[in-house]
């Protein structure tokens, strides 16, 4: 017995109980049978059901109980005469008719099954139920070809392209015929729009090799608007948001409630995609949806759309949305300023920030000042970065001033600012970066080093290759145990991260630091990074001696637990996570 058969039986049971209190009482008489069935005592349960049917031959709950238990016991033939007898007494009962079909199917008597189904169909000439039950009984037996013939007989007899299309679509899907399934879903959706979400959800499971064929059926030139929207949802489910939006966009000419619902659904489904493209198309869908709904829902939708577009890297799109709505809220103003800063229009942003002081919350204003200062630093405009922070006395601003001091070569000033800012200012990544820099600065005795400041500014501006060379130069001016190894380690880490040609430089730097040894944290850290680089580039065997050397030479180092994990991975003793 398959799950669908069980569910059919249970669903019928529920229907019977709720439809007629008298029958519900009859159902209660078989309660012990149910309990025995639940505890796995099928033969005992069947005995109770038989007893009930003997005294009440049309007792449907008992007959369904026999269907469940006798199947498990491989005694279905005992049920047939009882069902025939019951059906003769209540020939109009669809539940008994369906049960009879399922019993014939379970007994593998397909000719009798067809004859019984057609006889039932003749008694209800406008109903598709006999064909549906006939087909389902065969599907439960995994007899796909026979089931297809049953459904198509129904379609031919009753007429209508969409007749039994859902059943055929599910049948083709189970049989692995995805294109045929898609074609049937097209018929089903054409007949009833309500089927759309189900169609999209089913076709989303299609395996990758058939995606192109299925997509052609759903989005080809002959496809209706309704079908194309299903196609857009399916493409989304397959992780193709850009293609999905192209299809959806082509269906948006009409201004109707279906369009609004379709856009909202599309936006919600796109929300499940974590990729930048997913965010971008969600932003576009929300932007269009906002045009269909009144304020303040539309304002919120646009604010969300801007966030999504920014997340998706579409600054131009986000800016268009904001500029098209001049009465933007504070949230909109802040987003617009973020875009201006990200676009590099720093002077315009600074002017707008000054002008819209009252329209922004204090948090937004602080965050925008920091973003502006960081953008100035990225251009090397340290004075203007300092000016952007103004009189802001927050810990985040103090930490930022620390970086500005560092880039000017004022190591002592930077250290003091970082200390005042403390370990929790701004986000976790920034706090970690600051703490790592403090650890490096602690090893350096000099209060000032313009070379190191300039090298770190070059790094902050994103020119890694130049920064590596500048850091190496700055390191050479420092004593070996007075910060040189730490600065070399930093240069090596940047080079390792950069990859390509820089990997050889990274290895040379790590080697130099490891050879120098000493008390500081740099040598074990360099050896760990060296090993990681080797593992990453597929040279795990070469990494193993480095990791073993690290563990045995620096047993008390904080890097040892991580070194052991990398060692396990290099040896293949634990899975990659």
């Amino acid at each position, binding site marked *: 017995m398959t799950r669908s058969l*069980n569910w059919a039986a249970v669903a019928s049971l529920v229907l019977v109980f709720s439809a007629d209190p008298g029958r519900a009482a009859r159902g209660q008489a078989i309660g012990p049978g149910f309990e025995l069935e639940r505890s796995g005592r099928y033969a005992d349960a069947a005995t109770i059901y038989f007893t009930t049917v003997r005294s009440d031959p049309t007792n449907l709950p008992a007959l369904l109980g026999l269907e469940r238990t006798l199947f498990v016991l491989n005694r279905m033939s005992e049920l047939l005469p009882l069902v025939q007898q019951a059906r003769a007494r209540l020939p109009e009962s669809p539940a008994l008719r369906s049960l009879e079909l399922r019993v014939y199917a379970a007994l593998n008597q397909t000719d009798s099954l067809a004859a019984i189904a057609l006889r039932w169909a003749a008694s209800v000439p406008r109903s598709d139920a006999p064909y549906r039950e006939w087909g389902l009984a065969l599907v439960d037996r995994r007899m796909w070809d026979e089931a297809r013939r049953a459904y198509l007989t129904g379609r031919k007899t009753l007429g209508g392209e969409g007749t039994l299309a859902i059943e055929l679509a599910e049948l083709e899907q189970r049989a692995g015929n995805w294109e045929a399934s898609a074609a049937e879903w097209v018929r089903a959706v054409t007949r009833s729009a309500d089927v759309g979400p189900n169609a999209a959800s089913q076709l989303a499971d299609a395996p990758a090799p058939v995606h192109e064929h299925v997509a052609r059926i759903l989005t080809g030139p002959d496809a209706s608007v309704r079908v194309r929207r299903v196609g857009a949802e399916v493409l989304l489910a397959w992780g193709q948001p850009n293609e999905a939006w192209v299809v959806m966009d082509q269906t948006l000419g009409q201004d109707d409630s279906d369009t609004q619902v379709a856009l909202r659904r599309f936006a919600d489904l796109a929300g499940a995609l974590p990729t930048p493209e997913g965010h971008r198309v969600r932003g576009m869908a929300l932007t269009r949806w906002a045009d269909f709904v009144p304020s303040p829902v539309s304002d919120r939708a646009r604010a969300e759309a801007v966030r999504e577009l920014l997340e998706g890297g579409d600054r131009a799109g986000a800016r268009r949305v904001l500029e098209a709505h001049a009465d933007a809220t504070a949230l909109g103003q802040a987003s617009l300023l973020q875009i201006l800063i990200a676009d590099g229009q720093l002077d315009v942003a600074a002017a707008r920030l000054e002008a819209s002081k009252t329209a922004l919350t204090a948090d937004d204003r602080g965050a925008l000042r920091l973003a502006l200062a960081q953008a100035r630093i990225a251009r090397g405009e340290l004075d203007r970065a300092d000016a952007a922070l103004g009189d802001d006395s927050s810990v985040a601003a103090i930490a930022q001033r620390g970086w500005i001091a560092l880039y000017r070569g004022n190591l002592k000033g930077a250290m003091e600012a970082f200390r005042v800012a403390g370990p929790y200012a701004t986000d976790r990544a920034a706090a970690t970066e600051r703490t790592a820099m403090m650890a490096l600065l602690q090893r350096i005795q000099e209060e000032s080093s313009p070379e190191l400041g300039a090298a770190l500014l070059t790094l902050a501006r994103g020119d890694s290759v130049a920064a590596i060379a500048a850091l190496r130069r700055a390191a050479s001016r420092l004593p070996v145990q007075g910060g040189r190894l730490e600065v070399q380690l930093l240069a090596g880490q940047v080079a390792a991260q950069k990859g390509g040609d820089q990997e050889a430089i990274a290895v040379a730097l790590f080697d130099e630091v490891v050879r120098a040894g000493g008390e500081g944290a740099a040598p074990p850290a360099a050896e760990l990074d060296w090993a990681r680089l080797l593992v990453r580039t597929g040279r795990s065997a070469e990494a193993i001696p480095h990791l073993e050397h690290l563990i045995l030479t620096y047993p008390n180092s904080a890097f040892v637990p991580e070194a052991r994990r990398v060692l*396990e991975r290099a040896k*293949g003793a*634990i*899975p990659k996570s």
Partner: protein
Amino acid sequence: MTIGARLSSFLPSFRHSVIPSLLIPMDDAQTDHLKAYGLTYKAIQAGLKAEWLLNYRGGSFLVPDLDALRRDAALNGIRFEPVDSGMPAVRGEIEANNMDAVPLEKAPKVAVYAPPNAAPWDDAVTMALQYAGIPFTKIWDADVVNGGLRDYDWLHLHHEDFTGQYSKFFLIYSGLPWLAEMVQRNSDMARRLGFQTVPDLKKAVARGIHGYVENGGFLFAMCTATETIDLALAAEHVDIAATFADGTPIDPDADAKLDWSKSFAFTSAHLEPNPLVASFSDIDGHQVNGGARRQPLGAFTLFNFSAKIDPVPTMLVQNHRQVVSDFYGLTTSFTRNRLKPGVTILAEEEGAPWVKYVHGDLGKGTWTFFGGHDPEDPQHQIGDPPTDLSLHPHSPGYRLILNNVLFPAAKKRELKT
């Protein structure tokens, strides 16, 4: 096979070390319990003498104090303590209490029964062996049927369904690629070895494993393998496989026809005839896929045995925790009233009608069954990510697995007369 498995008696435990030793404590002082087993295994594999100090500081190990072992311990984060001068005191404590020192002399050769395509992370024992650094060989049906087991001292089974019903996932997971591959692979193997059906092949494999234990092999099984190997053995001449597995329905009188004299651990069980319920019989107490019959997880308690009188069960329960959180498997536990008389219960859930961990002798060999799938993944689902044992170096559940790997290394003691 060179190591006899009947370990009902052991060499006298009192043995003075003449060379300096390293004590590998296995109580809460240990920094990586699981790797400590690997270190001890490597020591005896290298021909060194080691001792298992039963019930002493969580079942500690004693290995020679050699640079190579110190280095290995340091690399793997294993705590050790040099014990030259302290050893007499340690031995005195062992003599005076429920403790014993068992010599470990030969590293057992380990085989894991698994399909060739099984990932190394598919079962808890493979993961434990891999993490501890204990070498093993993967074998499958052809090796068993062709007598290849004789090359190994220790055999592990995990989630194999020896009833040949693909863990009864055939209908539930119908159409999924991994199941299709499993069916294909098993069907091909059955044809290749001349069996009409997969259930016939698996019964033959079960009989091969039974013979291996009778001849002195050590069998350790977890999860579904425990329950289904006994069902397959008891059903040698009875059809207990659903139609989808062999084309014929289950024998309606199968329950009555099962011959439990052929099984390892269980008796008088009733089969689960519904092909849609991924449960095999009423041997499993928890019935994880049994709908309303499913029981919640609790915790199981390890038994205390007399180390000097019952060294084998004592070895199997060495742990730094007495109570361990339970974990599901397709077979999670063993109903008490389905156990054969004479089976040794190693761990049970107090007050519950099931036990977790059992052991017994058969012929010249022994078997141990441990319910559940993965001690550190209590709700294990198909498709879950593998357990990273470097995050569970103190796992008491995994320790029980590794106890089984090491106990065949214990030296047989001459029988007292």
